[in-house]
């Protein structure tokens, strides 16, 4: 599944003219936050018990790079327009991911958080993450699902 999330992310970034050469992967026992800005989307099964979390996690350089491309404002991390743009990016990635999986999972609305020294547990289940080098920084996409 993490491969499909990576492919979904590649597809959406390519739509903005960003080509990603290679992805690094990791595994952890808990789905925890990395970065200063995180957008989390829940996954629930329509008629079953499966559930999970998809996250997009940005460090400052990656967020700034993307916002420069998406809205022409690298400082947009402190504006509603910038946060809305990154939120929309997350919605597009999750939509593409779920279409690729072709399973009966529904996404919840995305919630974002940005701040200083952000610490978080996004899900108590084990997580897989992919890391993309972006604009001198890193964008991580995480998935934890039962």
């Amino acid at each position, binding site marked *: 599944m993490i491969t499909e999330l990576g492919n979904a992310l590649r597809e959406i970034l390519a739509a903005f003219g960003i080509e990603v050469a290679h992805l690094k992967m990791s595994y952890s026992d808990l789905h925890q936050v990395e970065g200063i800005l995180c957008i989390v989307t829940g996954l629930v*099964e329509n008629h079953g018990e499966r*559930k*999970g*979390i998809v996250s997009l996690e940005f460090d400052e350089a990656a967020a700034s790079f993307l916002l420069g491309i998406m809205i022409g404002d690298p400082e947009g991390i402190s504006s509603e327009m910038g946060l809305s743009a990154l939120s929309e990016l997350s919605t597009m990635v999750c939509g593409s991911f779920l279409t690729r999986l072709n399973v009966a999972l529904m996404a*919840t609305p995305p*919630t974002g*958080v940005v*701040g200083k020294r*952000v*610490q978080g547990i996004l899900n108590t289940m084990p997580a897989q993450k992919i890391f993309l080098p972006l604009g001198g920084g890193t964008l991580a996409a995480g998935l934890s699902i039962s």
Partner: protein
Amino acid sequence: MERVQFSEVVQTFAEAIREVCMQLLNMDVRKVTEEKPDNALIRFDGAVAIIGFSGGFSGRLFLGVSEPFLAELYVSMGGDGSSPVEEQLLAVNEFGNLVAGHALSRVNNRFPEANVRPAPPSSFRGEQLVFFNFGMGGFHLIFETLHGNIEMNILFKEDQ
């Protein structure tokens, strides 16, 4: 499907907070404010649980708790007073899970065709945290407890 009254859903979540606080902490909570938020951002210093939900309607629950409340919560869940950040995050995570679970069970009993499911809870700590959701509307409630306030913000997707 019977049209879901979101104000009724919000009251169900408020009742769930009261019940969970009584069960876990033997503590009364009192709602002191309820308003419709006028922008997409919530600023909060402290510990926060976020739980998305989806089904016949979708949205997300935000529960922000004060430091003293978090300390009580941690002890009530078997903590020994010295609480590493990860343990605190797990405590607020479980609090959010209990509140959302109680509330959505009742919502699904009241509106059986809604079949709304909670996603796993996420929890956060940090400084000058700003939470954001766009294209959603809902309510912001503040509850007073013996150990500081609980802030509850519940939003629903606006196209529903």
